[in-house]
């Protein structure tokens, strides 16, 4: 049914339709509305049988999720930013033990400096945690991807993160088509665990493994996650049939036919990029976009095929690997192998800075003119940085950077207006 809903509410509905049995959660912006919505549904009995456990921290949330999932319950949680970091130790246990927990990441920056706004620093920091990571472009895709995620997780017995841009998607009201319970039930059967803690048939899950088999267990995790590369497109096609709309599989191309310049990105910024591409195409510029939906496992072959005709690739990244630059770009380099195609990394949208069509247009024009460096920061206020560097050169005790720079631009503590 078509509804005008907030992204978080839409996701709460989608998760409820998947009939989770245990939801341990701890609130953190911008994820809070999702678990609030679910807790309300559990309280009214709209979502039953389901136990909502208001835990004392994110570490507890993931620990309870592990316990619940190991006893055979379909388990869901959500978090963001520092909350994700706080559960990291347990996160690796969930994947290492092969527990099919589904978790929404309402993508948000990581401090310091503290910042509640959107970028991909949080989920990117966990790209190697063994969790499957799916990034969504719109709230419709968020709904559909959560339904797919439960089936994918349980089929492979691996946990899945669905990453959606905090605020930009979670707090946006837009038109979404919420599936019926009958449609979701047709796609997603009750959870049938591959391993379960059952008192009548006792087993141990989580044994200590020494050098004799540790490599093999880890290699198996790699092999298992790689199975998602076949399974995601297969499940997406099946879900297409049930919902009557195109899901897209591992990657999604936009006007890639004959594109000489290809912009690669993840998440909601793809919408703004597509609009900018349409404008450029009207002027005869051969530019297209490649959206990466499955970031872990990374679809090397699909990316290689999609970029085969490109003369240059521009990777827009909402996270920064300090000391090297891009994160997604490194994987793009691997996908391109020995190809001579130049890859430009553009760090953009950090801590909620809007990525505008005007900036994207300048970026594309710069790339075409051969003026784009290997690593650039979109809309960087270089003068502000230089002033702070100057202070550190002039005075040893020059004070805290963030506060100095805020003072320079005349802001005490506020967000973008």
């Amino acid at each position: 049914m078509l509804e005008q809903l907030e992204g978080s509410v839409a996701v709460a509905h989608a998760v409820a339709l998947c009939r989770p049995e245990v939801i341990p959660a701890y609130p953190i912006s911008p994820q809070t509305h999702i678990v609030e919505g679910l807790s309300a549904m559990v309280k009214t009995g709209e979502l039953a049988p389901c136990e909502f456990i208001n835990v004392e921290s994110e570490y507890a949330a993931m620990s309870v999720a592990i316990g619940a999932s190991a006893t055979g319950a379909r388990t869901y949680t959500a978090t963001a930013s520092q909350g994700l970091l706080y559960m990291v130790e347990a996160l690796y246990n969930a994947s290492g033990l092969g527990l099919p927990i589904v978790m929404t990441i309402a993508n948000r920056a990581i401090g310091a400096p503290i910042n509640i706004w959107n970028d991909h620093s949080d989920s990117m920091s966990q790209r190697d945690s063994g969790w499957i990571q799916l990034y969504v472009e719109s709230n419709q895709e968020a709904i559909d991807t959560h339904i797919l995620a439960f089936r994918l997780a349980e089929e492979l017995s691996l946990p899945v993160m669905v990453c959606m841009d905090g605020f930009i998607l979670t707090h946006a009201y837009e038109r979404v088509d919420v599936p019926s319970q009958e449609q979701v039930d047709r796609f997603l059967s009750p959870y049938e665990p591959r391993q379960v803690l059952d008192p009548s048939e006792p087993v141990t899950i989580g044994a200590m493994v020494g050098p004799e088999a540790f490599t093999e267990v880890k290699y198996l995790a790699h092999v298992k996650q790689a199975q998602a590369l076949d399974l995601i497109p297969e499940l997406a096609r099946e879900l297409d049939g049930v919902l009557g709309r195109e899901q897209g599989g591992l990657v999604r191309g936009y006007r890639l036919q004959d594109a000489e310049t290809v912009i690669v990105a993840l998440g909601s910024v793809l919408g703004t990029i597509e609009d900018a591409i349409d404008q450029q195409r009207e002027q005869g510029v051969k530019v297209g976009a490649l959206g990466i939906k499955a970031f872990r496992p990374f679809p090397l072959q699909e990316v290689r095929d999609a970029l085969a005709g490109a003369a240059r690739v521009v990777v827009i990244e909402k996270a920064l690997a300090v000391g090297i630059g891009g994160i997604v770009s490194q994987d793009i380099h691997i996908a391109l192998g020995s190809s001579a195609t130049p890859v430009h990394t553009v760090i953009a949208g950090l801590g909620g800075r809007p990525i505008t069509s005007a900036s994207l247009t300048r970026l594309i024009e710069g790339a075409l003119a051969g003026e784009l460096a290997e690593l650039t920061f979109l809309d960087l206020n270089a003068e502000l940085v230089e002033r702070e560097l100057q202070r550190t050169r002039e005075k040893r005790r020059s004070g805290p950077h963030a506060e100095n720079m805020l003072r320079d631009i005349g802001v005490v503590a506020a967000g973008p207006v």
Partner: protein
Amino acid sequence: MFGVRIHGRGGQGVVTAAELLSLAAFEEGRHAQAFPSFGSERTGAPVVSFCRIAEREIRTREPVSQPDALVVQDPTLLHQVDVFGGLRPDGYVLINSTHGFDELGLGEWTRNFRHERLLTVPASDICRRHIGQMRPNAAMLGGLARLTGIVTLESVCSAIAERFPAGLAERNIAAARECAERVAAQLGASVGA
């Protein structure tokens, strides 16, 4: 695509206003996207929200930097925040005030814009009478509907009815209708002149 930017202060329902407007457009079978400026929510702090309305799917996610219409729920923001930034030359402005643009010290500024599209309504007074509180968000949408025609007054009223509990909805709808009438009266006068 029609872009609206709404300025107000934390507690005045600025974010809800954008959501209501998107709901009104949705009820007309159109695409609409509403989102806040994502500040740390504090009562009294300047807050901005956005709404886009279009006949086809809206893909862009950037803030509305060149609005077709501006709603200013709190006139004390006029000299604190650049509320008019990026307004299109043929844009609409609706300010919650008992004063006109000249009295607000905006006479000079209005020269570059279409006068008949720049109006004030005493939405706080109207809301105080109808609702008993000064939360002019829903009411001003009635005025905006009449001023711009981007959605109908009836769609605004049904969005309010859907979103608010019954009693509060009725009072807000009454306030929205009065704002619309006040706007209509000014538009009539402006056409007459």
